[in-house]
């Protein structure tokens, strides 16, 4: 505004600007957004509750029933997987809701227009949103995974089959499950960017992550075995197993995880392109 020196001078109310509005400020802004709405707390609370509660219930049930458990079942019992099953099965449903809402709520409320007026560099807004969501989701899922793990193992102590983090694959399964659930959330975030509608985004992600794998089971088994490793949910199954051999039709755990990560990255890129290109 230096050009308009004919105007009467207003006393400066702001420090002089330096640089330009960028990623740092937008990151702080997105963190303020996510922490200032109740839906975040509700979904994360539900996530913690189902992850820890169901893990504990399965662990306690197993321990109570241990004397009646057959030796073959005992041999294949995966104490780690049992304790984090709640996070794995239901946590991903919950995180999908939060991941989708992070962006679609801006469309349903109209906030997106205000957001993009404040920060018109859309790539920056999109990236900041995705990063803030991913960090929040990862922190909460890690907390959920470790609490569920330790609580589950203490409930399983009487079986003498409880796991410790130093055992092979256990740490990978605990952290990997949290990462997988976070990735499900990012997958939903990208779907939200593409569809711009909460219900549509949640429905289609649940379809892709949960329903298609179930339908795939109906295929002739040789087809399914060829297909299995390319399904999005295979990552979670591969990464959470600690006992017994890997499913021979799947890639090694982290490779299988990478398949889903690639899907998510592609979806995020499509979402970013559309977010930048479309009228808000």
């Amino acid at each position, binding site marked *: 505004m230096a050009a308009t020196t004919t105007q009467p001078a207003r006393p400066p109310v702001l420090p002089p600007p330096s640089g330009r509005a960028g990623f740092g400020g937008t990151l702080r802004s997105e963190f303020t957004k996510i922490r200032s709405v109740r839906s975040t707390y509700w979904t994360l609370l539900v996530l913690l509750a189902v992850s820890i509660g169901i893990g504990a219930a399965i662990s306690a049930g197993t321990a109570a029933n241990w004397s009646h458990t057959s030796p073959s079942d005992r041999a294949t019992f995966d104490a780690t997987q049992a304790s984090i099953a709640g996070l794995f099965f239901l946590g991903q449903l919950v995180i999908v809701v939060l991941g989708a809402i992070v962006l679609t709520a801006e469309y349903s*409320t109209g906030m997106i227009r205000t957001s993009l*007026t404040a920060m018109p560099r859309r790539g920056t807004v999109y990236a900041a949103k995705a990063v803030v969501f991913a960090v929040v989701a990862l922190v909460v899922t890690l907390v959920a995974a470790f609490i569920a793990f330790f609580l589950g193992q203490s409930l399983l102590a009487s079986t003498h089959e409880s796991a410790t983090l130093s055992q092979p694959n256990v740490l990978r399964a605990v952290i990997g499950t949290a990462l997988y659930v976070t990735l499900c959330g990012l997958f939903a975030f990208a779907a939200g960017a593409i569809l711009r509608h909460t219900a549509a985004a949640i429905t289609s992600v649940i379809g892709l992550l949960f329903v298609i794998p179930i339908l795939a089971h109906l295929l002739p088994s040789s087809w399914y075995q060829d297909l299995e490793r390319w399904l999005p949910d295979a990552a979670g199954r591969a990464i959470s197993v600690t006992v017994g051999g890997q499913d021979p039709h799947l890639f090694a755990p982290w490779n299988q995880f990478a398949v889903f990560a690639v899907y998510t990255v592609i979806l995020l890129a499509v979402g970013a392109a559309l977010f930048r290109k479309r009228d808000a």
Partner: protein
Amino acid sequence: MIEVRGLSKRYGDKIAVNNLSFSVEPGKVTGFLGPNGAGKTTTMRLILGLDYADAGTVTIAGQQYAQLAYPMREVGALIDAKAVHGGRSAYNHLLCLAQTNNLPKRRVGEVLELVGLTEVARKRAKGFSLGMSQRLGIAATLLGDPALLMFDEPVNGLDPEGILWIRNLMKALAAEGRTVFVSSHLMSEMEHTADHLIVIGRGQLLADCTMEEFIARSSGQTVRVSTPQAEQLAKAVAEAGGTVLPGGGDGALTISGLIAAQVGDIAFDHGVRLHELTVVRASLEAAFMELTADSVEYRAAENGQGQSPEPGQAPEPELAAQGRSAQGQYSHEGRI
């Protein structure tokens, strides 16, 4: 300061903005007028880069909006006061906006104070009335202390108190040397605030002139007299070349083609007693409606509701327009 050049935008088959060019000069209140559906909001969205133009360019201080180093320090724009996440408190709403432009946190408290929302700062925006939402939206525009403010229909749907507040605020902001670019479909809103007018209809520019030019251009004056000898005066006026317009009622005549002094002289010459002699200027509203008559999108089918009055016909005393607020005769067009 805002330079719009050859701007065009279509949504599907509908041309919203058609080869529109104008500029908004610094330090003035520029009224952006047009009937509903004229393309005012679209133009503002294009200026802000919320929508992408099919053709043409918009620059603000020489740059595209998205390229501005700190957009909120340059432009404060309010397009839709309800474009807020209802679950977020007023304070957090403003905070998250301020943070994008690295504005200090204290500024949030300052603008809340400025618009009188300090007491409800921690309340969720969901419970806000339209007036409060409007204040919150305006608070957001002031965060960056910008030299240019842009409001889309800021008084639409507000109660008289809210309208008065917005009007005074716009005047105060302009008095501080800021540029205010404000849209409305009501001429009466602009009459007392705008220095410059940009009028559009069906996405095209209809007028770009100062308020004085618009007034001068608007259809001429008429003279209203009231007299116990109406018939006699009407005859004399007609002989002198004036036109007596239909209507007017008992003992009153509305005369065009003659100025007040001429009418007074004629009356005197013919020994006609006058009880009233008033100069009536066609209201700016009438002039505006005349200008945009062909470009009104939706008009009532019956009674000629949406039609413009003929020049000089149905003239209104200048002051009448002042009393007519958003609740006035055009409020049925408020929302489509």
